């Protein structure tokens, strides 16, 4: 690999130092009693519209996204742009469903989706299923954030094998773990502001400067092989690439806000109105993601894949190296330092929120429910702090000792799994009609079928569903959540009849959702 880029590395380290200080200082920001779980794990539900914008933006548009989406455009072309319709159609859901969820959670002191489901349906096993799904789906996601750090550190010229090569990752991990432990959600919220400013500077500079350097968009798109520019037109008797493109966008959108880290970000807002305003403002990030996807084409046009100085990087990181290589090729070292810091810090923000979210789930829906039923506030928040460390350690071990492709495949399965909580959580916000055990069996059917379908197609996201001579390739998450709903709806009357009058009580009332 190339020599260590000292200028870029210095800028990178300086910015990392700044956010480390900020992460610890954040404990005193909008000061609250960090011995209470809703203070540590939700920032006291006090973040207004702007902070929520930075926090949720940093949370769902992760560093890994910024590396992987352009990498997909670089390798596979047009299909990578599904990220744009995906991040368009998420916002009606955010606007309609989540203010209701926020209201009821605030009213009853719920911190996790599991808490809500427990209160709504009165079934701790269903809540356990929600919690475990959330934790398992989140772990590989954290691991992928660390991959984001690995790629930029490698691109700075720190390479090789053994402890020396892993040291930067270990340091970043240590910093992340320490400030999350001490400051809770306030740490990623404050860091997100710095990181997003860096990301926007990078994206808008690059989207103007690189096309000028490469001779305009016309030239750039002319350099892309024609078959990569559009989706393949479906043949007879199949919905082809169109079906998978649309279902991938829709399914990813439905899954996104069910992830524990999105839930944590949203519940930390100060009001339902702050959430609604964000549904109109967060598309700012979608726009940037679309621009970044185009970076994959810039990388093709700049021919970074055939430049000898980047050969080692592509060998080690595959197409994920396309964006770092493009930035190294196009910009002076000091600017590369800023851009890489944006990506590296961009990994810490979601990783922190994810570990907090997983810790909240464990603490509330597993530990409190099954191990210690009456913890003090202090015990509960202490418990969550420790679990956040364990979760991150797990992700670190994963990334150091297991090939990256496993993390990617697990993350793909995670999306299929997390969407199975949709009937309980999103529909639960509107109706108590479903039977709790029917929901649990529907969930199990979705998880089982989804996993089996994914394995049947060698861990790809699309499954070619055949019905009467027609083939409908589509995102497995969408197919299996439909199955989940069908099972739940069919079993609900049956189980209600069996349960008779012993059906568990609903802690919530209609007014809790609208005030």
């Amino acid at each position, binding site marked *: 690999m190339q020599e260590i880029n000292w200028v870029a590395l210095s800028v990178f380290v300086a910015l990392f130092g700044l956010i480390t200080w900020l992460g610890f200082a954040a404990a005193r920001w909008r000061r609250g009693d960090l011995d209470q779980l809703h203070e540590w794990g939700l920032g006291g539900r006090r973040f207004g519209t702007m902070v929520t914008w930075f926090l949720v933006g940093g949370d769902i548009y992760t560093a890994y996204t910024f590396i992987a989406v352009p990498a997909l455009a670089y390798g596979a072309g047009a299909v990578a742009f599904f990220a*744009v319709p995906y991040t368009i159609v998420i916002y009606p859901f955010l606007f309609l469903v989540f203010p209701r969820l926020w209201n009821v959670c605030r009213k009853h002191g719920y911190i996790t989706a599991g808490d809500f489901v427990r209160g709504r349906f009165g079934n701790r096993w269903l809540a356990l299923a929600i919690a475990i799904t959330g934790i398992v789906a989140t772990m590989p996601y954290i691991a992928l954030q660390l991959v984001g750090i690995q790629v930029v550190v490698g691109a700075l010229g720190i390479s090789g094998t053994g402890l020396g090569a892993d040291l930067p990752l270990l340091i970043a991990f240590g910093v992340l773990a320490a400030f999350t432990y001490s400051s809770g959600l306030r740490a990623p919220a404050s860091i997100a502001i710095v990181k997003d400013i860096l990301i926007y500077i990078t994206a808008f500079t690059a989207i103007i400067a690189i096309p000028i350097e490469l001779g305009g968009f016309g030239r750039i798109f002319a350099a892309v092989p024609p078959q990569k520019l559009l989706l393949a037109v479906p043949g007879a008797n199949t919905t082809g690439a169109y079906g998978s493109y649309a279902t991938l966008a829709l399914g990813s959108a439905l899954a996104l806000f069910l992830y524990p880290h999105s839930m944590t970000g949203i519940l930390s807002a100060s009001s339902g109105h702050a959430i609604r305003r964000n549904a*109109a403002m967060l598309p700012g990030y979608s*726009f940037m993601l679309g621009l970044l996807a185009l970076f994959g084409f810039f990388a093709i046009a700049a021919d970074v894949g055939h430049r000898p100085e980047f050969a080692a990087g592509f060998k080690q990181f595959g197409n994920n190296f396309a964006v770092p290589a493009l930035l190294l090729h196009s910009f002076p070292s000091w600017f590369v330092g800023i851009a890489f810091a944006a990506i590296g810090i961009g990994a810490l923000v979601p990783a922190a929120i994810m570990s907090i979210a997983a810790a909240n789930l464990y603490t509330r829906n597993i530990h409190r429910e099954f191990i210690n039923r009456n913890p003090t506030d202090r015990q509960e928040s202490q418990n969550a702090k420790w679990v956040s460390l364990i979760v991150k350690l797990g992700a670190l071990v994963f990334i150091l000792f297991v090939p990256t492709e496993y993390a990617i495949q697990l993350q793909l399965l995670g999306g299929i799994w997390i969407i199975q909580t949709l009937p309980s959580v999103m529909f639960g916000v509107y109706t108590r009609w479903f039977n709790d055990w029917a929901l649990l069996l529907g969930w199990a059917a979705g998880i089982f079928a989804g996993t089996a379908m994914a394995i049947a197609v060698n861990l790809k996201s699309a499954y070619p569903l055949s019905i009467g001579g027609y083939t409908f390739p589509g995102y497995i998450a969408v197919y299996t959540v439909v199955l989940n709903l069908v099972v739940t709806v069919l079993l609900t009357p049956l189980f209600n009849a069996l349960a008779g009058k012993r059906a568990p009580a609903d802690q919530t009332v209609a007014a809790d959702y609208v005030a």
Partner: protein
Amino acid sequence: MKSANPTPGRWNWWYLLFLLQFVAVLWPPFYNRLEPRWIGIPFFYWYQMLWVIIAAAVTAVVYLASRE
């Protein structure tokens, strides 16, 4: 926001506007083509980017309209 304001959570007919963006971006035959280009960018790409902006505007309209 003052709590005297009407409440997020109740149904409002303005919400039907959201259907626009679902139809516009989840039906690839609408936009899976190269022409017309805009400053050299194929239709496929600038159409979807444009819809990010339209969808945000729609959401803002729904927010303002459903507040009263």
